[in-house]
Every structure is written in structure tokens, then in C-alpha cells.
């Protein structure tokens, strides 16, 4: 017997586009950990990340009937999450309300710190230490797979600025990760 939990993303997206809330729920439970983690890397605040994913999913539910390629629903929703997150980042610049940001939580107990840190931990630290404008562009490019033009439109900066900041971010990451190359 088949169940929706076994269904591929594209089928769930097609059903959700037809108004099947149950299929949408299965899709959301499958990928929400990724979307929330992505928003958390961008926004560095758990409550902001959750609000942002919620907004993105409500928008996705409304726009699903217009989605051209339902098989790519995960990437499509990732892009909506990034748009909602960059809206927040841009509005923060005006309110300057960046005091209570949490660094992504990670268990750094004594035993853990003594163990050789994994490559992913090292990369996570390097990304967290990038200037926000570079980190945002890195994540939109490398995790959401957006083009320079798409990133430029989200952030309201010229595509040339995106290209330059991404190159600086790459230089920093490569320098600081040289032990792992």
C-alpha cells in the first residue's frame, strides 16, 4: 500500500497545487528542517528564522498552482525563504535592531572541544564570522543556487556588487579553510 510519506516531492507539490493540504503537510515536514536551518544561517535568530519560514510557506501554498516545475518544489520554496529572509535583513538595516542575535547554537562541551572538529564545523565557523553582507550572498548563491541577478534583486544592490562580495567571501573561506583543502 502506498502512502503519501513515500511519494516523491513533485507528486506532493502537484496535489498541494490542487488544494491537498495533507500532501502539503507531508512536503513541509520533509523539508522544514532544511528551510529553518537555512533561514537560521541567514538570520541568526531562531524566532526570526521560524517566522520567516512560516511566511514563506504561506506564500508558497498560495503560489503553488503557478509553479512551473513541481519536481523542483524544494528549491523553489528555498528561494521564497531566502526572499523573506533578505526582506528581514534589509529592514534590520533601517531599525539597526541587531543586538540580540543568536549565533547558531552548537554543543561545545569540553569533550566536544577536545575532539578534532569536523570540516563542516570549521566551515560553519568561517561562514558565521563573515561580514553579514558577504555571508548572505554566499548562502543565497551556494545553498539556494541563485544567480547574481536574482541575488541582486533580493538585496537591492547591483549585480556587480554581488559578484565582488561573493569573490571576497570565497577568498576568505579558502584562506581560512586551507587546512582542509
Amino acid at each position, binding site marked *: 500500500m502506498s502512502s503519501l510519506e513515500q511519494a516523491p516531492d513533485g507528486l506532493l507539490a502537484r496535489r498541494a497545487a490542487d*488544494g491537498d493540504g495533507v500532501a502539503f503537510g507531508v512536503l513541509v515536514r520533509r523539508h*522544514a*528542517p*532544511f528551510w529553518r536551518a537555512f533561514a537560521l544561517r541567514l538570520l541568526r535568530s531562531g524566532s526570526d528564522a521560524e517566522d520567516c519560514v512560516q511566511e514563506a*510557506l504561506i506564500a508558497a501554498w498560495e503560489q503553488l498552482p503557478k509553479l512551473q516545475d513541481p519536481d523542483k518544489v524544494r528549491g523553489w520554496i528555498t528561494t521564497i525563504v531566502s526572499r523573506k529572509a533578505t526582506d528581514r535583513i534589509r529592514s534590520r538595516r533601517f531599525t539597526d535592531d541587531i543586538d540580540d542575535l543568536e549565533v547558531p547554537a552548537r554543543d561545545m562541551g569540553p569533550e566536544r572541544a577536545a575532539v578534532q572538529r569536523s570540516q*563542516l564545523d570549521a566551515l560553519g565557523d568561517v561562514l558565521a564570522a563573515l561580514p553579514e553582507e558577504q555571508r548572505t550572498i554566499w548562502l543565497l*548563491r551556494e545553498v539556494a543556487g541563485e544567480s547574481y541577478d536574482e541575488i541582486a534583486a533580493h538585496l537591492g544592490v547591483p549585480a556587480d556588487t554581488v559578484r565582488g562580495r561573493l569573490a571576497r567571501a570565497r577568498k576568505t573561506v*579558502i584562506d581560512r579553510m586551507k587546512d582542509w583543502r
Partner: protein
Amino acid sequence: MNDDIGGSGYSLDDLSAYLDRGRTPAIAAIDRNPECQALLDAMTRFGALSHELVDRDGAEQPPSPGWLDGLLDTVAQEVRAGRDLPYTEGLVVTEGAVRTLVREAGDAVPGALVGSTRIREEGELTRIEIEISVLGDRPLVAVGDQVRGAVADALRRHTPLGDAAIDVTVVDVHLSDGAER
């Protein structure tokens, strides 16, 4: 490091933009230069690792079930009923209700999952187009026929569309673990 990588005449900024253009049109001075290649490989690898990092974040710090439930409740309030279809005089049945009935009837057939459904009016005739995915080890034609039969039966019992033409198309084969084939 930034100005002239390995005597290629290209800077790290150039390499970064080249990578994002999909390395086309090909630049021989970059493609034949070992230092350029090492940097491009590093950029590609750390980009891919960023995606992995967010996947791991999501697996290690999953969203709380309460947040997910609340989110899906919020989305569920935005129901899409679809247009009204004429029933007997003074009574209508919504397209959304018919689609739900079609999905439930089709899903009840062992090995079948209903994807998208379309309801078309062709003059006097109503045509219902159903896309299905079939579990890997099941006979496609037999499952398709069973879905058609189950849907026809449900429509006859519960809607004014008992005479509708029903087209079933097998568009996918799914495996038991949710992967596509």
C-alpha cells in the same frame, strides 16, 4: 593571491565569476593552469559543503513539533475550494471537493498514488484527467484500470459526474522510500 593566479593573468575575482558562468565560454589560460584549477575546485567544494552544512544543521536541530503543527494549522486556514460545479438545481459541488474525492478513491487502490487532477468541460461532457504514480513492483496498466474504476464508482455515488470521461495517465513510478525512479 588576488591579482594574478599562477601567472594565468586572471584574478580570484575573475575565477569566481568564471565558475558562476559555468566555466563557459572556456578560457584555456584558466583551464590549463593548475593553481587556477585548485582554486576553482576549492570554491566548488566549499560551496557544496555549505549545502551539506545546512542539511546537517536541520538534522541536528530539527524544528519543534509544536511549531510545525502550528504552522500547518495556519496554512490549512487558506483552503482553496476552487470553482463551483453545477449539481442538481440550486446545488453545487466545488471542484476542490471533487478532486478530494478523486484522490481518496485513487489512493485507496494498492500501489497507486494520485498526483494532479484536472476537471474539464467539453460541451455536455465532463472529462476528468488524473495523473498517478505507481509503486515500483506493480503492473502499471492494471493499477491504472483499477484507479479508473474506483474513481468512476466514487463519482457515481457522491457527485453529479457519474457520466464523466476519466483519463488516467501513469506519469511516475515511485519506490517505497519516497525516491523517484
